């Protein structure tokens, strides 16, 4: 059935990246409706994350006139207006309409200017789905970074900025890294800035949000010489394994930090001991394989019987990050089980 996943088009994917950069003006070359859809959704997420400023989006506000006569002059004029506000960078995103009428957006963006102007081809259906737009934007922005002297630090690559719990996930992965003495060099791209993107090449390791980012991880490895780990820490054992992998990649001693994390996990299991022996069913309709596996890991840990008539408990996809992510999830399971 063609009716799609509920994650938007390439445009939304790219905007989930460009609107995370301070002092970046994003131009959407298309009808105002395309921009409103995304402006409204991003505004909702910003409001939920206590951000005061709404995303800096400018629509070229294409009308029937441009559909007939072409929209390039309108884009040029909008670009000049955007540049007059002196942003650090301008990202120009095309839409289905611009792509269908054949506007040469790339040529307009390619004109040399003092402020970088990046064209991110996001012609809705023409560019693929949400993930393609997300990836295209990250690829385009990664060209701002230069290879630099490596320090003991990591970059976080491809955070899912539209996730409701994106800040909690960041705090958790930062906590785990901090427990091993590893600072975060750059978030690529979440609540970031152009200078932060430029220093991407100074980290010793890239930590990808999830395996869908592997192609980007590879290209960053080629361009900047930074190896990568495929995913944020997920699950009980996965969190400990993540710490081992980071330790190995950075050649640092982590046994003490891992022992502390294990102790934290044991304490968490004691806190939720009222769950023991309950009968549950995973309420997420089609949990992804990875999430389902992590759900079973928790079920085993608490001797839960997974049965179709059990109490409904969520197994979110993406799965919550780290030990504290599991703690929040277990509160929801506890509520589901009336435990």
């Amino acid at each position, binding site marked *: 059935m063609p009716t799609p996943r509920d994650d938007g088009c390439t445009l939304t994917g790219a905007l989930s990246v460009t609107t995370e950069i301070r002092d970046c003006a994003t131009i959407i070359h298309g009808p105002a409706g395309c921009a409103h859809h995304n402006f409204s959704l991003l505004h909702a997420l910003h409001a939920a994350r206590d951000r005061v400023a*709404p995303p800096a989006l400018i629509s070229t506000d294409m009308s029937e006139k441009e559909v007939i006569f072409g929209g390039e002059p309108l884009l040029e004029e909008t670009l000049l207006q955007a540049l007059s506000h002196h942003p650090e960078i301008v990202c120009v995103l095309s839409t289905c309409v611009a792509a269908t009428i054949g506007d040469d957006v790339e040529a307009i963006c390619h004109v040399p200017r003092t402020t970088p102007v990046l064209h991110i081809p996001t012609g809705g259906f023409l560019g693929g789905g949400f993930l393609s737009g997300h990836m295209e934007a990250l690829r385009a922005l990664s060209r701002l970074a230069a290879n630099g002297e490596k320090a003991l630090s990591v970059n976080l690559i491809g955070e899912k900025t539209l996730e409701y719990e994106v800040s909690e996930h960041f705090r958790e992965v930062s906590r785990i890294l901090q427990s091993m003495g590893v600072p975060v060099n750059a978030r690529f791209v979440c609540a970031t800035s152009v200078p932060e993107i430029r220093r991407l090449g100074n980290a010793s390791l890239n930590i990808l949000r999830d395996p869908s980012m592997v192609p980007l991880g590879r290209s960053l490895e080629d361009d900047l010489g930074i190896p990568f780990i495929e995913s944020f820490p997920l699950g009980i054992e996965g969190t400990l394994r993540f710490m081992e992998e980071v330790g190995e990649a950075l050649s640092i001693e982590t046994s003490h930090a891992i022992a502390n994390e294990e102790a934290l996990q044991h304490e968490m299991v004691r806190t939720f001991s009222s769950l023991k022996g309950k009968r549950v069913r995973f309420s997420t309709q089609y949990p992804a394989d990875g999430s389902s596996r992590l759900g079973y890991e928790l079920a085993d840990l608490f001797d839960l019987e997974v049965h179709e008539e059990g109490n409904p408990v969520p197994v979110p996809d993406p799965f919550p990050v780290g030990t504290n992510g599991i703690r929040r999830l277990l509160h929801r399971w506890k509520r589901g089980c009336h435990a």
Partner: protein
Amino acid sequence: MPECAGPLWPCGLTGAAACLSGFQEIGVVIHGSEGCYFYPVTTLHAPLFCTSLSDEDIILGTDEALFRTIDDISKNYRDIFVILSCVPSIIGEDVRASLEARYGDDLMVQVIDSPGFSGEYEKGYLSALSALTLPESEAMQDHVNIDGLSLLDPFWRGNLQEIARMLRLAGACCGVPLCSGDAGNDTDIAPWTVHTNPDLISGRGSSFGSMLGMEAMRETVRALEDRFPDSGGVLSGRHLPLAEERINAACDKYLRRFEPPTVVLSGQDASMQAVAGMLIEYLDAEILDIASRNVPVEGKYPSRWVRDYEGIREMLEQQAPDLVLGSSFEQTAFPSAAFVGVTPPLRGQVRLHARPLAGIEGALALMESVLNACIDHQKVS
């Protein structure tokens, strides 16, 4: 005007989807890309379908994607409405002819031409509504339809409940609510209608008037009571005066301590005109400006068509009102003013219960919110 920084209002496609998804047994297919589908489906919380057009479809023709989607859902829906997004409209395929050739009389499929570049939300909503059959039934003379309901509007449930209650008090039966999920394409509708949103007047049934704002409501109630005299005028004789008495008392108390607020309203024009009327009547408020989301109508109070966030921000900074009525965009743009949410979107807050904006309870709720916001604002400042 090339720069439109942060467009505030949805396009015609979303309007058409908001209208059609408010009917039962209608399969709504958005003929476009996933992006065109994503916003309506996440904001309307109604089942919608999408052809998810790809670049291949654009090159080879979009018929196959459309047929595939319709075939998948045709067993579940008696009527199917296809909303054309920008791209099928641009490439100029004769979608109607293709559908006719494929389905003939076997399946009722209608096409709504509502590309985003050609008009805004209200236009799409009303265009879709005009395509529905909805025959008027003479047998429903004692019923009154309620129109102006939209799943996009955070007040639609409250408005429906409140106007249904008022119709019962007026001695009328509740007719068909347009468009809130209770009717099908060929459901009989009453020959009479009241409006909850003067910007979305359906044109179906003879109008008794609007239920938004006290001034309009008095007229509408009078017309209802003329038509249904058996109610004994309980609304105009008891309920309306009682509500006005309560509002007057609360506003009078407020004015004993505070100056009337200066106000900017932002939303659909005719609706904001009605709300502005109440603020002047009861609170002696000074209306500094009305920023209209849709093309302004000839109203009592001056208004401007403001389509983007930057425009709103500039207007609010220039006017510096004490009180802003609008959406969470306005709340964000000018956080130093007291704020009451009357326009979608209302983001960043949990909203569970059915709040009305229209009807007697809507008027009470509005004035209550205004007074509380103003009092809280005075405490802070």
